[in-house]
């Protein structure tokens, strides 16, 4: 179950796609890391592009309990236009006709709700352009 504290910690990434860009070698990490592969520890915060291309995907037909109502749904790896790849649900599409190479954009959506009375968790999903 998502606790308010855990959800809150991830807000910069889930809401605004905030990534860490190494100030020495320029490599971008999403989510941000403390140490770069080059050994540097200084990062600047950058916001990722909100458009990209579907690299691969799978269709979830037997979903975890909190996503049962949404099955079947697609989870894809999307390469954003700035080269960073992320995993996201691909929605507002017919999963039987989804194809690799599909252009997508990132939209702000509700990711899950915690029971009948818990918090509403928001974040990014992708939709075909």
């Amino acid at each position, binding site marked *: 179950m998502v606790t308010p504290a855990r959800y809150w910690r991830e807000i910069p990434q889930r809401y605004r796609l905030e990534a860490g860009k190494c100030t020495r070698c320029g490599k971008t990490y999403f989510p941000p890391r403390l140490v770069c592969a080059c050994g540097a520890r200084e990062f600047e915060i950058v916001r990722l592009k909100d458009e990209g291309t579907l690299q691969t995907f799978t269709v979830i037909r037997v979903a975890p309990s909190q996503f049962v*109502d949404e099955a079947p749904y697609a989870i894809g790896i999307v390469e954003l236009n700035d080269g960073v790849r992320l995993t996201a649900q691909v929605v507002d599409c017919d999963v039987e006709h989804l194809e690799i190479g599909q252009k997508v954009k990132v939209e*702000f959506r*509700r990711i899950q709700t915690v029971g009948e009375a818990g918090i509403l968790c928001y974040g990014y999903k992708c939709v075909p352009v």
Partner: protein
Amino acid sequence: MVGIVGYGAYMPRNRIRVEEIAKVWGADAPSYKRGLMLEEKSVPSPDQDTITMSVEASKHALRRAGIDPQEIGAVYIGSESHPYAVKPSGTVVAEALGATPEVHTADFEFACKAGSEGMYVVLSQVEAGHISYGLAIGADTSQGAPGDALEYAASAGAAAFIFGKQNIVASVDLTYAFMTDTPDFWRREYQYYPRHASRFTGEPAYFKHITGCARGIMEKAQMKPEDFAYAIFHQPNGKFPMRVGKMLGFKREQIEPGWLVPKLGNTYSGSSPMGLTATLDIAVPGDKILMCSYGSGAGSDGFIFTVTDRIEEVRDMAPKTRVMLDSNKNYLEYGTYAKFRGKINKITE
């Protein structure tokens, strides 16, 4: 001079036709289509709500405004379907846009008038010099009880406006407000669907307040219907805005560009604001635009705008409202619609 610096709209891709709803309830679709002048309406996906649509509409407004979100000093969201009963929508939206923490947020509620209410207040904040830029949003995922006349119209959408003093696309020349206590539509605490007073929602409610507001603002401005290129009136169905326009002396051509309701439905707090976005999409510099919202309970906010040269630079920077209305549509059957809107729920173990 204060005015709109950037504007944007957003609507879900799902639609349901009047015939599909009428079929389930044994109603006569042609008479609904003719009587209410409605063809179809937008339906939010299960992962869309007032907050998510507000974020998307605001991103479009930000693109057109060309400002840093950190410059936004206020985020006001008007809706009758805020996802939480207690916890602001505004903080989520401000956070998602990157406008926090030096920002004032508030959630407004006044039936279908809450969006224009936010516009009214944020405009005053900018005018007073308290903030440089302010964001006002009207958004709703409105619900009509199954089989009720409202079910044919209650839809989803959002419109966002950034107000400021520089780089204006439409100046606000005058505002006017017309309110009385009129119980024509309401939803009590813990009730899922709103109730309405049927025909009482017409003459003493919608028509009285919109004509009162429109006549009041035109008198104050010393303007006549023919002085305006366009007019937008709240759109609970297709018929009312056309009829109120005619009563006031406006022609169909002045109303039609912002008349989204036949294909969009009634987006409640988003209704007249979304009509304004569609009108700005086609307006030319110098055009005068009249907008009168309506919220049950009851009241109407009036605005007179003058479009500036900058409109030509910004209108293509974000998706146009009618393009969104006419493309990528996904038609739903009533069963899927009922599931999406929480009218039927899967059994849980």
